[in-house]
């Protein structure tokens, strides 16, 4: 029986349901110290002095470590702009300024609160507009001295962290030829990941090496970042991964780990750290707030002659991966909908706010919101039905995206429009007073970054996959990778185990991000399993005295095709081979090749291609309460292409969970800034969707096997969050007969709009 397309039990379900699963936040070690960070209480200012005395008076506090005691260089994923501890100036509220080391957690946290930090505040650069204003204060006066990874030219200039410019130079001509111009400016807030397990670290230092135990989405990046911060070789750092209580992108980079490692070396004792609830917010790499202005030159026949896009996104006080994410508009605009030409200008800017970063569907939700609101606006201006206009504008297979990459399977979207229409006919959907329907489509990537797996045949005929791929909750490791190995080896899924991450014990893995695990690591496993299988067949062919090509493996038994009685079990093969040829194991690596593209299409582009794309169409049907302005999502439909569905129930779970996060972004979640400081300080204040807020999501999963994927699988987990806000905003705009240009859609804004239209 095939292991694929069924929904076997997750390998971690039993332990998680019994409360037995050990997460990072559950870890402790004999003799460990605790440490906590003192953070800047202001968004910007000159750091004059740090007085440790009030902290040192607390029972159990051992030391207050400041910038003078730690490495003085700056580091970063792309731009080396981030100090380990602020030395001369602070650039955001929450920036670490000192570390308090103590014998207990309570003492460490009390100490961190007691450190007297003397800062002369300056007026913060609070918004991207302020950062770009002429004569704006520079967030980092010495920005020009920061190194950039690989020496890449990313268009840095003052408060501009990165600039990506795609400009074919023919926009003026196109706009001159237009019958009319449609434009809109779309504003979106930050979004907080709100993973439940706080960030933590447990570090030890023994015999010249650091070991970091953690719950982290990307152990190898963590290893490299800790090494970069401490100025040691990556091989001097070992990262051991434990169960992860949610991440959604927030656990992809270093946070507390380097501090804990430094102290572990300083004290030769294990050191444990963990964010408080407030620190979780202050130090979260939220989805960036952004302003997206879109203008299109349109001909009366519906041809979009040109689209001109100007984007400003808020990097916060440090660059993080904002420069890389600034490439993503290149894959959203002028992509799945045809435009003759486009100019796309993206700037990512420094402000005196907490650094933004990676959140599931990086930049996608607000970019697709702008693109799909704009499509509705053009359809309205043309007097065309919005679905019909989308279908008429849809790209054809072979059309090029703005980076010159061919859209090979974009016709999948036509199928999606049909499938959604079959489930809820467009003509009748959202009909009625203050009811509306909206659609949003997207093409999303499967992250291509490298992975490795070793597959070993155990001596009892079962198999173990050795990899540092991380199980972030999606099931990609706990079921998906096991199913792929089982299918490739002729085993049942429950006969395959997968190791936990350990950078000493496995090949490089680029972490749980961008839906890559099933596709990239799954492919490595499929390749390694093919090698294991071939060694098994060689051995079995000797045992059965039959040619290897005549053998089949089913349900853990190797038999001669057509002669089921001539068989040996995989256990017998493994036993035999172990003592004759030696144990069977094989490793394989995979990186998705960068798709063909035009390297000169834009300046500053760090993400050059859109590998292993998947296709998505969402439809939201809403009703609006005329009295309260409250929006109810009556029906929500997702049609998503996944290559091949390995574990259908897990995919459904990703779709429902992704839509819930998207609905939060669309309707209720807030991360507001007031003079650079976060307004929301607790979970409740963010307006996260609760069980009663989220409708049942209807999911249609389309399969178009990818020849490069393991058994055809592409990525599936990340993109369900991407089109949601766009679909909902289009539906609300339809319901109230007025545009929605900012998120979240607040009841008071809905009421205002209703008042204006009536």
């Amino acid at each position: 029986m095939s292991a694929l397309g069924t929904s076997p039990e997750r390998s971690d379900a039993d332990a998680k349901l019994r409360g037995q699963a050990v997460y990072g936040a559950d870890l402790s070690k004999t003799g460990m110290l605790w440490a906590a960070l003192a953070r800047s209480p202001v968004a910007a200012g000159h750091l004059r002095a740090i007085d440790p005395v009030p902290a040192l008076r607390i029972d159990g506090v051992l030391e207050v470590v400041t910038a003078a005691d730690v490495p003085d260089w700056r580091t970063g994923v792309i731009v080396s702009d981030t100090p380990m501890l602020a030395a001369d100036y602070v650039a955001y509220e929450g920036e670490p300024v000192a570390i308090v080391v103590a014998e207990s957690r309570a003492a460490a946290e009390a100490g961190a609160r007691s450190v007297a930090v003397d800062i002369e505040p300056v007026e913060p650069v609070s918004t991207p507009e302020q950062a770009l204003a002429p004569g704006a204060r520079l967030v980092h006066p010495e920005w020009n001295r920061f190194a950039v990874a690989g020496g890449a030219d990313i268009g840095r200039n003052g408060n501009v962290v990165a600039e990506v410019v795609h400009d074919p130079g023919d926009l003026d001509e196109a706009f001159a030829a237009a019958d009319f111009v449609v434009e809109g400016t779309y504003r979106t807030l930050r979004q907080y990941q709100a993973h439940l397990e706080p960030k933590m670290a447990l570090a030890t230092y023994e015999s010249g090496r650091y070991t970091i135990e953690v719950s982290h989405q990307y152990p190898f990046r963590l290893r490299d970042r800790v090494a970069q911060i401490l100025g040691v070789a990556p091989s001097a750092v070992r990262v051991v991964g434990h169960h992860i209580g949610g991440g959604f992108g927030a656990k992809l980079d270093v946070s507390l780990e380097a501090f804990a490692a430094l102290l572990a070396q300083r004290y030769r004792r294990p050191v444990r750290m963990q964010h408080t609830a407030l620190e979780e917010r202050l130090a979260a790499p939220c989805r960036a707030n952004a302003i997206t202005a879109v203008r299109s030159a349109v001909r009366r026949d519906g041809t979009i002659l040109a689209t001109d896009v100007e984007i400003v996104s808020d990097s916060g006080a440090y660059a993080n991966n904002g420069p890389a994410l600034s490439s993503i508009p290149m894959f959203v605009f002028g992509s799945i909908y045809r435009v003759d030409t486009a100019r796309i200008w993206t700037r990512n800017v420094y402000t005196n706010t907490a650094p933004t970063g990676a959140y599931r569907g990086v930049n996608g939700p607000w970019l697709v919101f702008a693109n799909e609101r704009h499509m509705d606006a053009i359809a309205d201006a043309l007097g065309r039905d919005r679905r019909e206009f989308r279908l008429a504008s849809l790209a054809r297979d072979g059309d090029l995206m703005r980076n010159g990459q061919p859209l090979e399977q974009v016709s999948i979207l036509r199928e999606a429009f049909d499938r959604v229409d079959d489930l809820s006919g467009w003509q009748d959907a959202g009909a009625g007073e203050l009811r509306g329907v909206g659609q949003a489509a997207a093409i999303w990537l499967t992250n291509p970054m490298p992975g490795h797996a070793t597959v070993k045949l155990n001596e009892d005929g079962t198999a173990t996959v050795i990899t540092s791929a991380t199980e972030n909750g999606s099931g990609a490791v706990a079921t998906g990778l096991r199913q792929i190995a089982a299918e490739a080896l002729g085993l049942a899924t429950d006969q395959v185990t997968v190791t936990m991450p350990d950078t000493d014990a496995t090949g490089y893995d680029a972490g749980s991000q961008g839906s890559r695990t099933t596709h990239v690591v799954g492919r490595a496993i499929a390749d390694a399993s093919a090698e294991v299988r071939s060694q098994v067949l060689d051995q079995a062919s000797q045992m059965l005295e039959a040619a290897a090509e005549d053998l089949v493996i089913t349900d853990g038994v190797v038999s001669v095709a057509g002669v089921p009685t001539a068989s040996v079990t995989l256990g017998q093969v493994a036993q035999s081979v172990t003592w004759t040829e030696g144990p069977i194991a094989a490793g394989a690596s995979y990186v998705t090749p960068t798709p063909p593209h035009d390297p000169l299409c834009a300046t500053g582009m760090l993400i050059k291609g859109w590998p292993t794309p998947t296709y998505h169409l969402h439809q939201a049907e809403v009703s609006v309460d005329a009295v309260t302005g409250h929006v109810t999502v009556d029906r929500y439909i997702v049609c998503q292409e996944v290559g091949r569905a390995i574990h259908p129930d897990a995919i459904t779970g990703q779709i429902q969970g992704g839509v819930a996060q998207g609905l939060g972004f669309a309707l209720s979640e807030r991360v507001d800034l007031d003079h650079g400081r976060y307004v929301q300080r607790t979970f409740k204040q963010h307006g996260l969707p609760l069980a009663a807020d989220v409708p049942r999501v209807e999911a249609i999963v389309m399969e178009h096997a990818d020849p490069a994927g393991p058994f055809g699988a592409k990525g599936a987990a990340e993109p369900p969050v991407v089109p949601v806000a766009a679909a909902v905003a289009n539906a609300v705009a339809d319901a109230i007969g007025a545009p929605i240009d900012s998120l979240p859609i607040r009841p008071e804004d809905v009421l205002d709009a209703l008042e204006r239209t009536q």
Partner: protein
Amino acid sequence: MPASRSEQNVTVRLVVNDRAHELEADAGETLLATLRDRLGLTGPKEACGEGECGACTVLVDGGPVASCILAAGSTNGRAVRTVEGLAGAGDLTTLQQAFVRHAAVQCGYCTPGVLMVLTALLEKVSEPTEAEVRQALAGNICRCTGYQQIVEAAVDAARAVAS
């Protein structure tokens, strides 16, 4: 000011998962800290620390409470049940089995609290509707699942128990 010198310990006698304990808790110590740090029961999860997310939920005398904001001292003489006490070392409960069948576990960090709330609900209401299940979960944040598979698991478990 020296911290914790003037604080007084309190003696707490409580029954946790059918085992009686007598222990000295710090004044102001939360039940969550007692369970996790003194009794080694790390099933109840530490998350928001503010009683807002539900990951730390345990049953006190059968009713769900946020153990991260409940003083351990206030549970003197009471019976506490944690996620570890649901199945013990035996088979998973009907509810837990339904979670497996419905793929209702993802990262799993909210799961212990969600299970306690739903266990209490199913003890009170034999066949809750979907809406009742969703209402019961008003204090539990799950960022992974979108709640649907959790709700389906609860309804299915109730049906399985009733039949």
